């Protein structure tokens, strides 16, 4: 299993790879795009500067460093859709990515995928979580568009992930394991929270109901969501046995120390599984929960990707 981590600026590249990341993914909004559509209306799924490389030269250097250290570098072009006019920009970005040596693009828009394939651009495509891949038949759909890998929806259980992987030979799958838990299905969510000073976090804050019941209480539970605390470490044991390709860390725009802690925890647990092929699931869960406590400074929290395993 590889570790796929977000990177936002040049200074992070070495640190993330040295901590254990095998693959990095990034965003870059070209100046001409920003001038026309604003940064909030980004060419990728993040509409704020902290989640973007600010200079093409930095991006180029970051790719070079990653390759020198045998790490892959992916670029996100994963908004829901592009207009006909925007394809001109998006396809220029595809060309730029190829020139820079980017290893794969993370994409959502069917139109962009079709255009990339039609033009014969020699670059692998990874289907973004924004595409809503929840079952093996969706994978069959995308396979016909000649995609190489898929980021699975973050709400899938381990069993559901297993069903997809088992019936999808030849496709590599990424699963979310750290940070960035969302209350809703990202691919079908319309909340705008691209820049907190404009939009806040409307998916979790601000609700007041006409009456209260169990459902409103459960909804209110998200109010204090700390996206930095999302964790799915317990599931690594199963992910290894299921044949998961990459363990994805959410968090473009998150602080570097947060990313490093997440990578270190994953790296430690991955090594534990490699060095101890006969470790029991029960023993692994203890190690995973201990690793969680070490990086989060507290026991398992409510922001668990796989609560079926955890103590909560």
């Amino acid at each position, binding site marked *: 299993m590889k570790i796929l981590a977000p990177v936002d600026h040049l200074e992070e590249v070495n640190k993330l790879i040295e901590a254990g990341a095998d693959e990095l993914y990034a965003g870059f909004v070209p100046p001409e795009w920003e001038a026309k559509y604003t940064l909030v209306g980004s060419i990728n799924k993040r509409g704020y500067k902290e989640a973007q490389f600010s200079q093409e030269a930095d991006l180029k250097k970051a790719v070079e460093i990653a390759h020198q250290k045998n790490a892959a570098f992916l670029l996100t072009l994963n908004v829901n859709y592009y207009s006909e006019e925007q*394809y001109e920009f998006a396809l220029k970005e595809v060309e730029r990515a190829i020139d820079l040596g980017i290893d794969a693009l993370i994409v959502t*828009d069917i139109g962009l995928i079709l255009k990339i394939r039609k033009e014969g651009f020699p670059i692998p495509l990874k289907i973004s979580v924004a595409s809503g891949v*929840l079952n093996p038949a969706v994978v069959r759909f995308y396979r016909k568009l000649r995609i190489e890998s898929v980021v699975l929806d973050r709400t899938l259980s381990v069993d*559901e992930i297993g069903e997809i992987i088992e019936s999808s030979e030849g496709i590599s799958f990424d699963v979310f394991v750290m940070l960035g838990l969302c209350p809703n299905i990202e691919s079908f969510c*319309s909340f705008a929270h691209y820049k907190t000073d404009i939009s806040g976090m*409307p998916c979790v804050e*601000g609700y*007041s109901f*006409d009456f209260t019941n169990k459902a409103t209480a459960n909804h209110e539970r998200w109010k204090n969501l700390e996206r930095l605390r999302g964790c799915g470490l317990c599931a690594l044991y199963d992910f290894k046995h299921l044949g998961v390709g990459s363990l994805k860390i959410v968090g473009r725009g998150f602080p570097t120390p947060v990313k490093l802690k997440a990578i270190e925890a994953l790296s430690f647990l991955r090594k534990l599984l490699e060095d101890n092929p006969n470790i029991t699931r029960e023993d692994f869960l203890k190690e995973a929960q201990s690793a969680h406590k070490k990086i989060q400074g507290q026991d398992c929290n409510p922001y668990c990707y796989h609560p079926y395993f955890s103590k909560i």
Partner: protein
Amino acid sequence: MEKAIYLSDIKKLSDTDLSGYQRLYFGAEFCEHLIPKVEELKQAYDFAKQAGLSFTLVTPYVTARGLEFAEPLFEALSAFGDENTEVVVNDYGILSMLRERPNSLKPVLGRLLTRQRRGWGLYGSKREIPDKLIKAYQNTAVEVDIVVDFLNSMGVNRVEIDNLLHGVASDFTNINLDASVYYPYGLITTARYCSWAFDGKKWLNITGSCPRTCRGNLLVADHDFFEAKIYMRGNTQFYKKDDLDGLESKGIDRFIFEPEPPY
């Protein structure tokens, strides 16, 4: 202009006045646990036919389990042999499944897959959203030639959208796709972390034994950030917009009335 009415609760069928409509939409759009049983599908289909209406089955996004729930419905629909019957797909897996069946049913691309970005319209006067941004978010993912051709090749000749609070710029007049709009409820978001199915430790809908306690319940919320009210039905949140002005001139030839937010 074709007028459709959309019911997702089988119990509401007999109380609903179908006069003035030409088509009945029936099914679950957002939750695989609420996909109707074959008997319910037959009941709804018969109800539509008795009233002289065409029939559309609505299907949600699904996991592998949901694919299994849906398959018998497609078998039953095929057996009806009614070429005017449609299936709304909100999951490309369902679309693949329909294409793989021997008796091809008529797929319609649902509003989850036309990928409108609805969020900016919710703020109303509570936030000043730049015009540039609003204009960038008034279309859909299905208006460019290469996508239209692809959808046509997949047997899709109709797509569906919401009536955006911040305005619809899509114009299907010269696009080789028919288009429908849902009203008055438009989608905001949908979740598998369903508030009705959480038992304090885990989500029962994800572990496979959903109690379906959401049925019959509707929550209405105010939101500090938004001018719009939020209507919560099961695992899904909606806004409401009644005004359909101008949509007919944009090549939208079917209006789908939702008496209440669907499941």
